[in-house]
């Protein structure tokens, strides 16, 4: 168990006392957990197949050809059909399917009807399908996983660069500081979205290249805040005391300055995540994000607005976005409140 400092414990208590943010954090953590284990909940592969006395767990690992279960094809088993068939044969074999037995890339076409299919519990598509017959729940969940992973990666890279360069700028100052000041000044004047769109139109980006490009244009703001707060902290007496005791620069930064700037960093995290999700969704919506058929909220938004006659597509993704962004913002508010208890005294 990590021993929390009294201040951190107080901040944690204050955070917990803000119910909205605290519960949002719990729900968000649960959502993250669910999306990590998405294959167990939303997947076309069965969880467990009991066939002729043997048990199979097809969820992870290589695919099992249809011949495994006495079917007459070599490609991957269609577990929904297998389930129906085994029930029909009634020999004690059974299949346990996930709650939503569809994967995000699968076009579930029904004979005689064109997709999109409206939401129906009987059909297994709880939120309907998109225009090519892919399940909306599956697209939403896997899209969320990609978006949140993207946002977290962006956060980690931007903050690593921002903290390293910002600290160095604030701590050493001088020519290094000046150089980066000018660089940030110039770099932050780049028309960010437009340039990313141009780059994306040049090379069809994948997850990593898109993240690299976004980091390339997104590291400045954290750098700037870190520079300011390091500069403030450096001028405090405790840094002078540490120096007088013979502490090295590295020790002063790591042990004294950084822990005191942690509130700046923590406070911004939720908002950076929200902006990461929003940015990826916007790029996907415009068609300059991750290439199809990657499941993505932006792509669903695009489909939904192009097909307003099928409102379940656009409304599911809009509601999902609103809920997630509201929760992230609630968490952000609670953290900020916990770290910055300034009260207003005002004239009455």
């Amino acid at each position: 168990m990590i021993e929390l400092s009294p201040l951190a414990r107080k901040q944690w208590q204050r955070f917990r006392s803000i119910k909205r943010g605290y519960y949002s954090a719990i729900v968000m953590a649960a959502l993250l957990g669910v999306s990590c284990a998405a294959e167990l909940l939303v997947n076309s592969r069965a969880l467990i197949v009991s066939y002729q006395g043997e048990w199979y767990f097809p969820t992870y690992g290589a695919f099992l050809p249809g011949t495994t279960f006495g079917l007459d094809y070599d490609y991957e088993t269609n577990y929904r059909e297998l389930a129906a068939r085994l029930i029909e044969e009634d020999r004690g074999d059974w299949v346990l399917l996930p709650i939503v037995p569809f994967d995000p890339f699968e076009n579930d076409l029904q004979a005689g009807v064109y997709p999109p299919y409206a939401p129906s519990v009987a059909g297994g598509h709880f939120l309907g399908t998109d225009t090519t017959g892919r399940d909306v729940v599956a697209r939403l969940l896997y899209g969320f996983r990609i978006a949140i992973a993207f946002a977290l990666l962006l956060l980690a890279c931007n903050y690593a660069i921002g903290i390293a360069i910002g600290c160095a700028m604030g701590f050493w100052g001088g020519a290094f500081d000046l150089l980066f000041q000018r660089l940030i000044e110039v770099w932050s004047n780049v028309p960010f979205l437009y340039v990313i769109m141009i780059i994306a139109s040049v090379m069809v980006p994948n997850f990593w290249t898109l993240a690299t490009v976004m980091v390339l244009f997104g590291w400045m703001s954290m750098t700037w805040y870190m520079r300011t707060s390091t500069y403030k902290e450096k001028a405090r007496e405790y840094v002078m005391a540490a120096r007088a005791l013979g502490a090295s620069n590295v020790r002063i930064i790591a042990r004294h300055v950084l822990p005191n700037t942690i509130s700046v960093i923590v406070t911004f995290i939720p908002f950076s995540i929200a902006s990461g999700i929003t940015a990826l969704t916007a790029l996907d919506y415009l068609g300059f994000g991750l290439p199809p058929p990657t499941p993505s909220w932006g792509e669903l938004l695009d489909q939904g607005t192009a097909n307003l006659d099928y409102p379940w597509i656009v409304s599911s993704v809009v509601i999902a976005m609103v809920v997630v962004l509201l929760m992230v913002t609630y968490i952000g508010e609670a953290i900020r409140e916990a770290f910055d208890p300034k009260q207003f005294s005002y004239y009455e």
Partner: protein
Amino acid sequence: MERELWTLPGAWVRKVRDVTTVGDRLAHGSSWPRPLPLGSVATATKTRHWWHIDGTIARLAIRARVVLTAYFIRRLLLIVPTFIGISLLVFTLTRLVPGGPIERMLNEAAMANQSAAALSSGFGGAGGSTLSEEQLEDLKAYYGFDKPIFEAYVVWLGRVLVLDLGHSTRYTEPVWDIIRDRFPISIFYGVATLILTYGVCIPLGIVKAIRHKSGFDNATSAVIFFGYAIPGYVVGIALLTAFASELEWFPLGGFISDDFDDLSTTQKIGDVLDHAALPLLSYMAGSFAVTTLMMKNSLMDNLAADYVRTAVAKGLTFKRAVFRHAMRNSLIPIATSFGGNISLILTGSFLIEKIFNIDGFGLLGFESLVERDYPIVMGILVIASILFLIGNILSDICVALVDPRVKFGAAGDRGD
């Protein structure tokens, strides 16, 4: 315990706004993250009753003005390297793309040939190049593809300096003419958003600050929180789905109806407003929350300041203390974001223009990117960059105008 974001100091809101920029600005389309103007925000929030300056401060102010002029000259000079940097980067990129204008033209020619051949003789053309080598060279020379990238860039820059942005590869019209055609629509939306945002946010912020924690404050806070968390384009899509598609109260998009020319003047005005209602709401959603909270927080900061207490103690009415004293100081933070509007006015938003199919600047940029019409892409980049650079400087000038204590580029440059 107070637990709402809008009761925290204005500086916090602004800091968060700057971090959230990637998403926020995406929602606004053409903007990009911008760190605080060097040293300005720290000074802008420390509000005092500044117009009672004595001789010393006045002398300091004069010295500050000299520093200020030097600062703005430096900022203006910085436009040049920034602009060259951005345009060289994008220019190089557009050169490296497969499927540039020449390939496009060759494809079109080949396809036209094929269908013509199919019509006349029944079998298709060779499918390859149908232009002679000489024609190809002419084309390359026309678009500057025959030169190395840097040389071509210098030629292009030289043309931009005399305001020649080249010809569109799609429409073969001059780029400037195409862009100019979109100005009225973009300016309409930009100015309307500007007026609505400031017209609603400033009074709302004042009322919320004075009636802090009242029922009205809490109710509007809920709406504001929503606008703060949800980006403008998602609001736009939600509005479009609900009010245009389901309820059919508003048209599905566009700037005017097809039968616009046949309408009477009042009908025309009604038609434009009918089309503009939803997009304007989405544009406002983007800046609404931040501006209102900034106004509320800075007014509350000032209401808590000693000079307001003093003013009331000396016998001023509360109303007069608020409107004559506190409010004037509270407008300073609002001024920091004013310059950003100039680029919003003209460049609008890729997202909102795409959602509502508004034929403005943003949609043009988006379409030309999709169609790989690089002269237009570069033309829009030039105009957007310059507007943004000027907007940033304008913001700083606004701050300096309303707040003479601001010292840019002087000792305050070190962050705080």
